[in-house]
């Protein structure tokens, strides 16, 4: 399938660059030949239907799983294929929040946020606690320092995960489905928080999501992963893609299928219980 690319060429060096990345799970192909760049200060959306390999791609980008082939470069330094030391230096400058929060369940929130600080700074324990409390306050969790993750709601866990991700003031923040399982208002607040953090920390943000509201509200660049052809089929600002991308899959995704005949079956699902025993 042809690639629909609406990105504007940039002469600036990219923050994150992915070249010819192929992702496999055992002997099953997930995605092949992914090529995209993320500029400094972008809010870059990785989107696509469920099962298209978005979270797997994220694991390649943050250095968790080695891709089957291809390169991932941070400001020119590749993370797969270079030494452990370089990778660790790059990893220190990124922050990741996970779909389920990924908080360490045996530790309180302040301990969770303290771990990266203890690992990478020479602050004493009092200073670490001060700084960790500040990060919690930044995500609106002041006063919850000594709570355990299991005592919090889903939205609060995500925010605590975010506090931990920004503990070391990263240049690049990754989010795996930040709004999954959150109500629209909480999800909107999280979007605002992401925007505020981007502006205040000067960070680049990469978000894996399929929440349309978030995609249009905060994204300024994106890649669309297609589960059928198993590669990227669209690149660029989601708002421009919505207007200009002619590919039906992308258009249907960005419009929730309302302009295509895909809506008809969606309505029929709601009608099904009534129809089941109704007069035909």
């Amino acid at each position, binding site marked *: 399938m042809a690639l629909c690319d609406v990105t504007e060429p940039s002469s600036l060096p990219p923050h994150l660059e992915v070249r010819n990345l192929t992702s496999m799970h055992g002997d099953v192909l997930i995605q092949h030949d992914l090529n995209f760049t993320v500029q400094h200060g972008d809010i870059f959306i990785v989107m696509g239907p469920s099962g298209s390999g978005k979270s797997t791609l994220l694991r390649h980008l943050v*250095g968790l799983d080695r891709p089957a082939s291809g390169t991932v470069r941070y400001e020119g330094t590749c993370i797969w294929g270079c030494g452990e030391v370089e990778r660790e230096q790059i*990893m220190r400058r990124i922050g990741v929040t996970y779909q389920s929060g990924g908080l360490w369940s045996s530790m309180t929130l302040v301990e969770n946020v303290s771990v990266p600080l203890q690992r990478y700074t020479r602050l004493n324990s009092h200073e670490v606690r001060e700084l960790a409390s500040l990060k919690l306050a930044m995500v609106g969790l002041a006063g919850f320092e000594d709570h355990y993750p299991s005592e919090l709601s889903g939205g609060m866990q995500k925010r605590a995960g975010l506090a931990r991700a920004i503990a070391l003031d990263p240049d690049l923040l990754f989010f795996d489905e930040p709004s999954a399982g959150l109500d629209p208002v909480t999800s909107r607040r999280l979007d605002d928080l992401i925007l505020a953090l981007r502006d205040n920390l000067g960070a680049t943000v990469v978000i894996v999501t399929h929440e349309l509201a978030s995609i249009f509200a905060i994204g300024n660049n994106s890649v669309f992963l297609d589960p*059928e052809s198993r590669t990227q089929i669209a690149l660029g600002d989601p708002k421009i893609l919505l207007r200009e991308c002619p590919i039906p899959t992308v258009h249907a995704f960005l419009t929730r299928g309302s302009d295509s005949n895909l809506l008809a*079956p969606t309505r029929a699902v709601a009608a099904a219980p009534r129809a089941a025993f109704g007069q035909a």
Partner: protein
Amino acid sequence: MTEQIAPKQLSWDRTVSGDVAVHLSGHWLVEQGLVDDATVAEIVDAVTPGRAIVLDAAGLLGWDSSLIEFLTRGVKVARARNVAIDRSGTPSDLARLITLALAVPDQSDRRRLVGTPPPLARLGGRLLKNVDIGLAMLGFFGDSVLALGRLLGGSSAMRGTDFLEALTECGPRAVPIVCLISVLVGLIMAFIGAVQLMKFGAQVYVANLVGIAMVREMGALMAAIIMAGRTGAAYAANLGTMQLNDEVAALRTTGVDPMDFLVLPRLLALALALPLLTIFANLAGMLGGAALASIDLGIDWPLYVNQTKHAVTVTDLCLGLVKACLFGSIVAITGCWCGMAAERHAAGVGRAATSAVVLSIVLVIAADAVITVMSSVVGI
């Protein structure tokens, strides 16, 4: 008010043009069963090439999934034979549901490409898989040695509190169960031994039997097996769940080595706790033996203690404790490895806990056999 259910009816006839008209009437309900494949094939075959199937649902009174199933199956068969289907005669909500069922193309090509290989290849594949597992576990063992090196070098991310917590969990809290089992094991050994030794009038040697067996072998072995079931399984379930919740991934992306942070405190705790538990097990076993000896054989306590003192040497005790330390490491490493290698779903965590117990018991007993042979060769 109950609605009268009219049984479903399916009939078809060929029109003059070569089309086949399919008439659906009555109530199509799952309780009445599904239409068989032969009927579907018969209808599709009846169509003259180039003509279509025309659905007529004028007599349809009600329907559920059974009708949708029949029609989607029909559509698939018809597509395979290049026969068109005219669905305009069906209710619009029915047509939509069929479109829905057919909207997402069959993704069977995403499933594994390889079919079932021949038996010999399967056997070989399984062998290679086990070799891979063995190598991975060896790698894990190497990683834990490196983590220990980092700890000694002072650059470990291990937290002291985690170690103490793990030590409390696998030390003091395990004492009652270890003692209970060991008393019973000592009692059983004394009983079996007494029956044999009485034939020679050598009952007093029950103390030697129980003492040496407990200190050299059974103390460490029983403690290790209990800890495999108690703590090894807990480690696997704990780390498996952390893996499932992305907690392990979060450690990695934070730049904290999970070996330092999760495995090392557990490994050190169990390697330290098991020799201590073994001392309890030894004492409890001998207590069980002494109890049986005094009740059943009339050997009084001072005599039993004296006899034990002569029989058991410091070498025996040290051998038992060294073994206990090794067994503790085996149980901890196996449990942690099973947890870290667990598949990322609930069943995977369950399997990890099971294989942690089975694998660590097997490895402990195998290691015990090797050490026993080696020590007898060396003459300890």
